[in-house]
């Protein structure tokens, strides 16, 4: 027996909006589809931007990448605002429990001064790199094309701000909220020779105008290397050396990275599959940034995770690129 509530059924006059019907056929569309496809302004812009008079607003030529249809992308996570904030709220809840546990049990007291100093030097300066990542993803949102991409850039950008804030909170847990560890970490970022390459890479990325090139420089090359070096290799090393409790505080970054990779890989793959010209451009960018990042990250990689760390991270990057159909010539050589 089942309970059956009788409701008045009204026949509908259409299944979905026209923009989703044209693209996906005459059937009910998902919320992701209705809110992500073909809703950005595309035509009849009234005025040229005073800040870039040679282009239109929402101009598709703000990158050298060319797509016949910019809406061929699909976020495998199907994030629109509602699903995005709910996914992050879940991660946040776990992180909050971890941070509270760490504070309540005073786990900082159990860490040696060497470990604390090491974390301050090797992990905390990354909060500044995350701010650059935030800005670079905002460029993708502001100057990119098609909501399927631009919204994901914004989510990614805000995630990076969130990660910078979690990293800062690690500092505050270590220094008892004095902010001293953050000041020391910033000092390292500004003056420590092992960090100068990373800072240079970050600052150089902030003047890049092609938003897709920025995506490669930041989300593909830099992030793959940084997240492998610091949130996998360094994490492992810390755990082995008595700093396992720190791992509790970087779980968010690890989970987030896994999630973000799904989107980043799908963008790479779709773009490379579109045309040889796109693939060639991606390879050029990847090669150029891979080479720079390998040099720029090497000093801090070594002090953080050992002398083989950089090679391991580069191998992770190459594997990832290969899977997406973008093969770096440097890796192939």
């Amino acid at each position, binding site marked *: 027996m089942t309970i059956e509530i009788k*409701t008045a059924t009204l026949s*509908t*006059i*259409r299944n*979905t*909006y*026209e*923009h989703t019907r044209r693209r996906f056929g005459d059937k009910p569309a998902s*919320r992701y589809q*209705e*809110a992500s496809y*073909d*809703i*950005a*302004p*595309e*035509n*009849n*812009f*009234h*005025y*040229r931007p*005073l*800040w870039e008079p040679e282009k239109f*607003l929402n101009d598709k030529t703000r990158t050298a990448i060319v797509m016949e249809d910019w809406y061929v992308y699909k976020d495998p996570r199907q994030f629109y*605002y*509602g699903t995005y*904030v709910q996914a*992050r*709220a879940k991660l*946040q809840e776990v*992180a909050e429990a971890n941070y509270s546990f760490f504070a309540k049990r005073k786990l900082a007291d159990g860490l040696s001064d060497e470990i604390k100093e090491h974390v301050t030097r090797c992990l905390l300066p990354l*909060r*500044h790199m995350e701010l650059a990542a935030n*800005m670079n993803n*905002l460029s993708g*949102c*502001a100057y990119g094309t098609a909501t399927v991409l*631009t*919204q994901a850039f914004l989510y990614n950008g*805000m995630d990076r*701000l*969130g990660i910078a*804030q*979690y990293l*800062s*909170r690690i500092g*505050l847990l270590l220094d*008892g*909220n004095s*902010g001293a560890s*953050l000041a020391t970490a*910033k000092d390292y*970022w*500004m003056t420590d020779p092992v960090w100068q390459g990373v*800072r*240079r890479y970050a*600052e*150089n990325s902030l*003047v890049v105008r092609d938003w897709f090139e920025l995506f490669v420089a930041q989300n593909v090359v830099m992030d793959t290397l940084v997240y492998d070096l610091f949130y996998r290799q360094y994490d492992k090393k810390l755990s082995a050396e008595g700093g396992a409790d720190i791992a509790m505080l970087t779980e968010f970054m690890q989970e987030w990275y896994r999630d973000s990779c799904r989107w980043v890989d799908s963008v790479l793959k779709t773009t490379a599959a579109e045309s040889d010209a796109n693939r060639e451009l991606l390879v050029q960018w990847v090669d150029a940034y891979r080479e720079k990042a390998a040099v720029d990250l090497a000093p801090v990689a070594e002090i953080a995770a050992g002398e083989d760390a950089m090679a391991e991270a580069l191998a992770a990057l190459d594997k990832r690129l290969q899977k997406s159909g973008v093969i770096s010539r440097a890796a192939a050589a």
Partner: protein
Amino acid sequence: MTATKLNLKDRYRLLTRDLDWEYSYQNRKDVFPMEEFEGIKITDWSKWEDPFRLTMDAYWKYQAEKEKKLYAIFDAFAQNNGQQNVKDARYVNAIKLFLTGVSPLEYQAYNGFAHVGRQFGGVGARVACQMQSLDELRHVQTQIHAMSHYNKHFDGFQDFAHMHDRVWYLSVPKSFFDDARSAGPFEFMVAIGFSFEYVLTNLLFVPFMSGAAYNGDMATVTFGFSAQSDEARHMTLGLEIIKFLLEQHPDNVPIVQRWINKWFWRGTRMLALVSMMMDYMLPNRVMSWKEAWEVYFEEAGGALFKDLARYGIEMPAYAGTAIAEKEHLSHQTWSIFYNYTHAAAFHTWMPDEREMDWLSEKYPNTFDKYYRPRFEHWREMERAGERFYNPTLPMLCQTCQIPMGFTEMNDPTLVSYRQSVYKGERFNFCSDGCKDIFDHEPEKYVQSWLPVHQIYQGNCGGADVETVLKDYYKMNLGVDNMDYRGSPDEQRWKQWHNLQSAEDKLKKAS
């Protein structure tokens, strides 16, 4: 070690402001290249007061809770066919106007705040703008979802984004936002953050939501409530940007004043659409446009500008004209749309006797004198089977792009008409305000994509209006457009409620 307690301000500083650093490998000006060309002088970004101190973890948490509740209501609304509970189906035309005219502006705000959220040199301002960008994305997407169910039961919602880029009356809101986004980052903030989100929000966003509340539209009003705390944040950001600009350098004051003048006038012109919505499209009226204007602009706006006087800021130019217009705006705008309903993706109608009486009562100085006789005449024509549609294409104002139908305020029978000549070409305006805006930046406004000009120039897929409407606008003719009476919307509504139209009764009787 015992952890000391951090106050909210210090904590927020460490978690946000302190993430920034002084560049040494690149020039700051190359990282933020758009900060100087407008003439605005920023001497010290650190003086920026964070309007709200929300870290991302808290943002995700609060917003996710709000979304969960909101979507539960949307689901219940669809499951129970909540669209049957609106006061009457004429109401639905108000939210057609909203989805085609306002929701795409939320999209543009999402774009615009992402742009300034990248370009501002101060990290505090940048982050606040980024959060607003994210909120604006929320608003456009939740509005699409709120109205998704209406779209399945009413005509005129189905191609909102396509129409926003093309349809003549939608070029009014579109050009408004294009104007703001194509301006420099500081003008954008004065235009949207301050003038639009702070000074005029109670006259734009709120009347639609109140209209939903008064007319049984649970999906839209729930969205409205859910967006309230976002809007509150946006208002504090709008106020902070003004105070910050004015405090940074005295040279900023005249620039900001000119922007306030411009965007106040641009905004009031766009509000013409809201005025007719409030006075004519809501079966259950919330308040008259005139009352809303008095409460939200004359009183609240008056107090605001009194407060800003200490910076040397005055009431916007042409506030006097706008105040005089409150007696006429909605009637003149509704007349325009009644005339051109065959070219619009929503229905219009003549108010019934009870509604005319309400208008007489709310507008004792003008309605009976200037508008009632005209409306009664149109009603007579309709009864005689000759519902009036204006077959010509109207001339549009070069700045606000509204058809030239507004009158002089000292003579409501005389259409207001202004002209400027730029590089040997003549341009037409509906008002002194619009002419001034053009005269200050003619090279910008000569670019306006005026829908009527574009049709005449053959850029809209055909020479005759019907082809343009059908193929270029993608309107379903005889379905989306024309008078509400006799529309498929009306027929369905009557079917749901077992109502018979007067005509049907007559037919059956004969």
